[in-house]
């Protein structure tokens, strides 16, 4: 238990160092970009008729540091305000805090990508086991081919195709926007059911276009495990086939477990194409808009969120892995 706590503290500490490193890197990247957006902004404000003091204050509010200061001091200011959870203010959404914008966008991405991720993982793992066990039959082969094929279709093509099929050809599902705008958002059934029916298409698009990856990984993992001595041993000891499938599945899913938890981290990057097609105001859309508008505070805020999410997911994976695989326990 003491070992566990020491490990936990150490991992959290090293995670924080990593976040800091990435934040610093983002800071210097923004500063070194051609055209220097900070001084460009400053100059633009002066040209708009602001006094240098006003412009300086404005830029300080936006970026969290003053462009005229030496780089070192700017950096200290930036890190200092970051430590106070102040990520500056957006340029394109004038005067609104970056953290506020991100917090508003995050739930949409989570609903969409998380559901899609879980759905594609479940479909992929089950189909992968089937494809591995029945790999010499036409059924197994067609499963594998379906996975690779759908995996190869770009998400936006899949999304547009599904949208055409189910909103135009057979208009059974709503299209665009995360919920019906005539319904008041709140914790009531009409709103929730509207949320769900609007989410069906994007989630299905996500699941269909990404289960192939899980399928192929699971299939090869299962085939590797099938060749292990203990599987033959369990057969010759006369274990029930349900027990044997359990043995196989547990051993085969371990490599996918890591991939899955890391995907949950990367999920915070949003899914640009799907959010765009189905008009979800999620993180992917936000990032695209920020890049479009050269909204640097918003960009670095979003990048920082992705960084933190991946690092946290990494730490959680590390600890959960020792739960699912006794060989990792110490």
């Amino acid at each position, binding site marked *: 238990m003491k070992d566990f706590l020491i490990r936990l503290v150490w991992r959290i500490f090293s995670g924080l160092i990593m976040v800091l490193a990435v934040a610093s890197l983002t800071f210097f990247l923004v500063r070194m970009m051609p055209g220097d957006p900070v001084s460009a902004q400053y100059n633009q404000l002066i040209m708009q008729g602001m006094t240098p003091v006003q412009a300086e204050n404005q830029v300080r509010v936006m970026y969290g540091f003053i462009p005229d200061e030496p780089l070192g001091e700017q950096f200290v200011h930036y890190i200092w305000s970051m430590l106070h959870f102040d990520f500056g203010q957006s340029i394109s959404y004038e005067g609104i805090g970056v953290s506020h914008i991100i917090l508003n966008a995050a739930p949409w991405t989570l609903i969409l990508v998380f559901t899609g991720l879980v759905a594609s993982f479940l479909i992929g793992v089950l189909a992968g086991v089937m494809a591995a066990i029945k790999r010499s039959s036409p059924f197994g082969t067609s499963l594998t081919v379906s996975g690779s094929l759908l995996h190869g279709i770009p998400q936006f093509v899949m999304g547009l195709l599904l949208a055409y099929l189910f909103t135009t050809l057979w208009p059974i599902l709503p299209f665009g926007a995360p919920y019906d705008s005539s319904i008041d958002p709140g914790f009531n059934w009409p709103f929730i059911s509207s949320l769900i029916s609007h989410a069906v298409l994007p989630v299905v698009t996500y699941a269909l276009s990404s289960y192939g990856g899980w399928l192929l990984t699971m299939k090869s993992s299962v085939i590797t495990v099938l060749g292990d001595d203990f599987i033959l*041993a369990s057969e010759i000891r006369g274990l029930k086939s349900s027990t044997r499938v359990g043995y196989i599945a547990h051993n085969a899913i371990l490599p996918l477990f890591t991939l899955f938890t890391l995907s949950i981290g990367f999920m915070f990057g949003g899914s640009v194409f799907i959010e765009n097609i189905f008009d979800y105001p999620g993180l992917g859309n936000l990032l695209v808009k920020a890049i479009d508008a050269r909204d640097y505070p918003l960009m670095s805020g979003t990048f920082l969120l992705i960084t933190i999410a991946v690092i946290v997911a990494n730490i959680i994976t590390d600890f959960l892995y020792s739960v699912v695989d006794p060989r990792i326990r110490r």
Partner: protein
Amino acid sequence: MANVSTAHAEYQQENHKPEMAISARNINVVYATPTGKIPAVRNVNIDLPKGSITGIIGESGSGKSTLIMAIMNAVTKPGKIESGSVILNSKNDLLKLSSEQQRKIRGKEIGFVFQAAQNSLNPLRRVGQQILDLGRSHDVKDLRGLIKYAKELLARLGLDADRVLASYQHELSGGMRQRVGIMFALVLKANIIFLDESTTALDMLSQAAVLEIIRELQKEKNLTIALVSHDIGVVADLSERIEIFYAGEIVEEGKTSKVLSDPGHPYTKGLIQAIPRISGDIDAAEPLKGSSPDFKTYQQPGCLFYDRCPIRTDACRESRPELESIGKDHKVSCFRVGADDRN
């Protein structure tokens, strides 16, 4: 008169034949390879008398492991059993039972200790859990009793039973895993045990200790054991009967003492001569000449041992010898039995 008395003697012998735990007939196993089918086991008949230890000796790749996998009907791809029957306890043909009936016999009536017994456990489950899995698969009602018996066996095998049951595979040493493998073969009280090179990975001392325990258990529970090995010393020490395997066929069989003291087949002689003695000149041990048979060996019509045989004649290249009786309970497949091999 003479004829009548020999017939009578044969009749009596027939009557005293021990009951067979396993009686396999005409087993043929082939491996499909890109160069064609390679016969791994050809027309093998083998009997395991109840309550006896039978040694199966052969060099690597001779098909001895394939034979016992075939007896269990567990030959793995690309291998395939082409024909044969395996009569269990003079009753059912194992190869003709439904897969569910076969599953129930595996483990419950026939225990199996693997060549790679060190890797025969699920790495993600504790040994105790896996014993319970085994018990549940075979509808054992008294699981508490099963665990108790497992502990008893482990203790006899010289292990700390409680520790082992609470351990994962990676927490046990190779020798410990091997013994756990033996426990798994015995825990459901199977009467027939196959040991497939089960002690090969152990050092000499551990091997001797484990074999001693196997001998004890065999006597105590009157087990029928088939001991597959390439170590002629192990087999000589333990088994009552011996089967010499070469290129997928049995070339000599009989009582161990008889076969080893008076070998009939040049291959058996070669095997015995290849054993270095503890006392005396190390060079007196003579390795077998030539190399193991390959797929070309099988394509010619003559004796499979022809290429390596010191007493071959041209006739040996024409046709293949069959197992023939050369004495009481002693069969050899060689045209040149008794010929001097030093010419």
